[in-house]
């Protein structure tokens, strides 16, 4: 084995050394955060810089033996074919496994100081693993493809042909059965093709390493194609029903709980959702709307309120994390489902309630104490007048919604719509808005200069 590894080193150090250097360079300078406990979501295009030498190293595995009858000499030596194959596999895996571990060590010992505190053995190993497995797969793919046609160009043609076949023809055929798949189609197909394709190429290519290299190219091609086709047919034949039955459960095991924690850290709104696993640069992560929303007390995890989504297809604001807002009083509100301006409110005491605002629209501007929300009463005549820009413009009737009780408190605040956007809370009980004077519009200027002449204050909460 030692001699075989030495042979591999002499034949392929040209590819292995740039591969190792590229892995080290990319890991340390372009993606070092992967060792700091992050799961490798942020994949940079620089990763291709290390994937290409890994592929070339794999393609070069049997390139020397597959040309000019050198295989005859190799197999006349007292070394079984398994040993030759094992030597080639181990050589590539030594780089694919060893160098990321070395990169993790380098990062821990000599990485930028602020980041080193976040590197633990567990995070370093997890980060190294995200580098190890794509490189190993790419190398094995290349190695299996190198057994068919002579030279590296032959291996590349084989690889490109297999990828075209898998992605184009097979995926096209799968398109026909897509409606039968009760899971996200393209993601499932991608993972199915990746798994079955790797299996098929290994099954078709590796047996050629056993004296297949001494056969003429047409004979090799026949054997390779037959095995590839057989595994593809069997793999997809078994894989499609399996994927339709268990694919989503198997692939979407990772649960990402998006959460919004209240300003005091006492409560949290959680949106558990399952995501597809990542595949390096081909990031297939897709966020799906959460099927449920829960309101928790963080101290003990007790659910104070929750609701489950009923209609999967319809966009539903309460199930979208970005629709919810906390006030500083640890109350949360969100636009409710439907066409109107109804509002959904969470209070620790009353749980989840929906307040109908049939003739009001609310402003996302809670009072400083977080308890009140301004609402504007609109009427059809006002709306028409505003819409047609008839002077004098409409007057808004402002009221206040008490989020704790769900009660609308009428006020005496009347503001013309031009000043409506300028209304602010002055205190927990008072609203204010400015009054300006406008100078005549100067020639060449689009807007009139305005001067603040006063601020009106109205008490709105008794």
């Amino acid at each position, binding site marked *: 084995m030692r001699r075989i590894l030495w042979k591999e080193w002499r034949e392929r150090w040209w590819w292995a050394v740039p591969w190792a250097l590229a892995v080290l360079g990319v890991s340390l300078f372009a993606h070092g955060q992967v060792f700091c406990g992050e799961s490798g979501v942020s994949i940079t295009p620089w990763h291709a810089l290390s994937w290409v030498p890994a592929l070339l190293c794999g393609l070069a595995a049997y390139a020397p033996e597959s040309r000019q009858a050198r295989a005859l000499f190799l197999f006349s030596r007292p070394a079984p074919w398994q040993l030759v194959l094992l030597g080639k596999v181990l050589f590539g895996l030594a780089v694919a496994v060893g160098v990321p571990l070395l990169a993790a060590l380098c990062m821990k010992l000599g990485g930028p100081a602020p980041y080193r505190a976040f590197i633990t053995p567990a995070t370093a190993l997890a980060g190294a693993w995200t580098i190890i497995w794509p490189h190993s797969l790419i190398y094995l793919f290349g190695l299996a493809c190198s057994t068919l046609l002579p030279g590296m160009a032959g291996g590349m043609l084989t690889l490109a042909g297999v990828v075209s076949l898998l992605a184009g023809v097979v995926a096209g055929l799968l398109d026909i059965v897509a409606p039968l798949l009760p899971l996200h189609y393209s993601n499932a197909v991608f993972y199915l093709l990746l798994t079955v394709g790797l299996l098929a190429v290994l099954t078709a290519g590796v047996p050629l390493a056993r004296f297949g290299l001494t056969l003429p190219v047409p004979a090799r091609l026949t054997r390779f194609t037959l095995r590839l086709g057989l595994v593809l047919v069997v793999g997809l034949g078994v894989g499609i029903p399996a994927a339709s039955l268990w694919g989503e459960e198997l692939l979407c095991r990772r649960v990402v709980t998006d959460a919004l*924690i209240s300003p005091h850290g006492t409560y949290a709104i959680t949106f558990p959702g399952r995501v597809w696993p990542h595949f390096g640069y081909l990031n297939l992560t897709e966020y799906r709307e959460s099927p449920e929303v829960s309101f928790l007390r*963080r101290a003990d995890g007790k659910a104070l309120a929750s609701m489950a989504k009923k209609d999967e297809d319809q966009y539903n604001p309460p199930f979208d994390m970005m629709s919810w807002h906390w006030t500083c009083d640890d109350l949360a509100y969100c636009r409710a489902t439907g066409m109107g301006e109804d509002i959904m409110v969470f209070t620790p005491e009353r749980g989840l309630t929906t307040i109908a605002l049939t003739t009001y629209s609310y402003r996302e501007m809670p009072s400083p104490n977080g308890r009140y929300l301004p609402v504007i009463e609109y009427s059809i005549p006002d709306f028409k007048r505003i819409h047609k820009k008839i002077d004098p413009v409409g007057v808004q009737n402002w009221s206040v919604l008490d989020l704790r009780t769900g009660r609308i408190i009428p006020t005496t605040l009347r503001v013309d719509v031009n000043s409506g956007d300028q209304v602010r809370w002055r205190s927990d009980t008072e609203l204010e808005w400015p009054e300006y004077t406008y100078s005549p519009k100067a020639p060449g200027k689009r807007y009139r200069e305005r001067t603040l002449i006063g601020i009106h204050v109205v008490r709105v909460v008794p």
Partner: protein
Amino acid sequence: MTAASIWHRLLWKECRESAAVLLVGVALPLAALPLNRHEEFFMPAIALVSITIALWAVERARGLAVKRQLLPIPALPQWLTLYIVPLPVPVIAGAFLGVAYEAFLPGHQPAAGALILLLCTIFLLSTVLTRVLSAIPAVFAGVLWLFFGFDASMPETTQYLTACVIVGALVCAVLWETLAARQRYVLGRVLVLIILAAALGTGGVLRTWQRTETSEQDTPWTAGIVGGLISPDHRSWVNCQTSDALTETTVSATVDYRHYTADLPSPALPLAWQGKVAALFLVWPARGAGGELRRWTFATNRWETLGTLAVPAEIRRPAMWGQLGSSPDGRYSLLLRTPSRLGKGVDCWAVDLHARRIVLAMPDVGYYDEHVMGLPPPVASWCADRVLLSGCGECISIDYATLHGQRVALPAERSAR
């Protein structure tokens, strides 16, 4: 054999040898069609076609070196069939890639011309370097050119560079075959390398100029500071907008319906409010090891330097900064920096204004990156002893004493598994 017979046989040989490569070049761009994932498959398809072209060019040139010297083929047909006749293969493959790119990814810039030039360059570079040096540097040059000869975000900016290298490679091809026929190999290698270096240099200068021209028209800025900070009572706010060149910052504030603005000759970021009359800023001086802590009094437009913050080397280079908020007592402030010093993603830095220190609180926060454009920055919940970040796909707790963040799991996360 007559000249016509030689041409006939050479062309037939080229057709047979190129057919498989041409098939790959045409099939790969179309392969993503049934999967309907062109965005993800486009770059791998370009990479696979480029590597195929490079290896194919190397094999052709090596085959010529080994075998064809013995055949009775005149020099001109040999040169033409080595360098010119196969060019339709990269041209057709590049056109297919480019047309697929434009057809399936609407909204992107046209890339067919750039891709044709890219593949032709890879073919010619690999062929010339195989003839002049050997196969391995030729493969490296061809593959590495993939990373420098094409920019997916601005495809047209690489056209001058690739055109220069194509012209240089063709000149080298003529020169080398002429000198090699006279067995002046050393001189030939030196001249070829000089010409290629000159072509690269000229192309590089032209690419820089072209990028500058393009960026002036329509390119999102990659460095700058956008910081907005709302006062604890939600009635006032300050904003900072730094120029792309990080040479000046426009600072504005709105307090009680009154607007204040000031211009600073340095990048700046708001850190905290001081009542309703002033705000604290982190200012990066033009030259200096640390960041300055400055106080801006709105009414008088007065800037005071309160001291310096020891800014680590990791955050001195240009980047895009954002403000995540400050604690209600104004002591702590959280800043977001993208890209991370170690790659993509966003790092969260914490500032302790009392201790005058700025430390990395958490590297690569959540999913706040280009894959999920819709997600907002994390939401900060300022508790008594720690600040909690949420709303970014994960929950992070940053302790005030250490300013060291750690990811924490919510009870719901465990129950949902």
